């Protein structure tokens, strides 16, 4: 059984999409916030791999074709953004200053907590890119000589949090304006948060898409100022 599935090209994709489908059905039936389709399907897929005894490399042989679609999907985020161009032009200052505040807060809070946990330089720069999209985060972590695999993990944990609780956190914090919500979710939790913002509303989704690109580039630019602090 294990040997048979291990070398399959379709096992990884089938399990991932299958658990996602199941998780979406569960979410529809019981609308509890921890029943996040992404969280449930990740947990179920990991459980399946551990139970059957298939390692990540073999799983990813098939599953990587799902990741492969991420570039064209991110390119397509320009579509909702284009549909909201008027809004973008009209509120340009608020949007750019908002994203910049988020990027600055990301650096300051990571720096402060790294001091608190007495992290070394390598651990500190590993976490610096955690709020930006994986592809930019990987390059930045490499550039700063962090542990790239751990950067990816922190980015995914951040994104997952945004995807699960982005709407809830905004509600608790009193962020009500659709533009502000989109900027908050996109700046803090990149593409994974944006997937959620898309579900909340068109304006939220478009603003969140914009934030990924802008926050990513701002982070790369500002990282030089912050990397030497620890």
């Amino acid at each position, binding site marked *: 059984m294990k040997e048979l599935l291990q070398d399959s090209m379709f096992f990884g994709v089938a399990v*991932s999409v299958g658990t996602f489908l199941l998780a979406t059905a569960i979410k529809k039936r019981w609308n509890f916030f921890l029943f996040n389709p992404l969280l449930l399907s990740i947990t179920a897929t990991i459980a399946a791999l551990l139970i059957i005894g298939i390692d990540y490399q073999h799983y990813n042989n098939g599953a990587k074709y799902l990741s492969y679609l991420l570039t064209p999907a991110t390119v397509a985020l320009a579509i909702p953004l284009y549909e909201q161009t008027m809004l973008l032009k009209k509120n340009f200052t608020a949007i750019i200053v908002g994203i910049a505040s988020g990027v600055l807060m990301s650096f300051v809070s990571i720096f402060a907590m790294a001091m608190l946990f007495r992290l070394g330089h390598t651990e500190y720069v590993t976490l610096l890119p955690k709020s930006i999209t994986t592809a930019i985060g990987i390059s930045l972590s490499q550039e700063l000589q962090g542990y790239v695999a751990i950067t990816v993990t922190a980015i995914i944990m951040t994104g997952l949090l945004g995807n699960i609780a982005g709407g809830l956190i905004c509600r608790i914090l009193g962020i009500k*304006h659709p533009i502000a919500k989109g900027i908050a979710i996109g700046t803090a939790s990149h593409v994974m948060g944006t997937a959620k913002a898309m579900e909340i509303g068109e304006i939220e989704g478009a603003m969140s898409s914009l934030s990924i690109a802008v926050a990513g580039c701002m982070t790369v630019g500002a990282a030089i100022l912050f990397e030497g602090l620890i």
Partner: protein
Amino acid sequence: MKYIIQFEIILAISLVGELLNRLIPLPIPASIYGMAILFTALCTGLIKLSAVKETGKFLIYIMPMMFIPAAVGLIETWEAMQDFIVAIIVISIVSTILVMAAAGHMTQIILKFKGKEEKK
């Protein structure tokens, strides 16, 4: 036919983004170049919205699934992180909430301020 054309346009833009990523020595990924190219092309009318809309929206719709493989990769990095796993989790959660608060409230404050100015 229509959907094939739409898919090909998005793939072609991804290709250009990939080439730019390789040619320009900046840590900007293919997808971000691609997003900027498609946005510019739509704004200038070079590409009509109807030429990418349905396939693009479909890709966005199924996007959450695309994160599963990367996240399942956690089972591999788990061991390497054990030394500072608590720090990673606390920093990830706290700073995400703080970033949302800063970005969201700053945007909201400026929007409100501008709204008042316009009314005057």
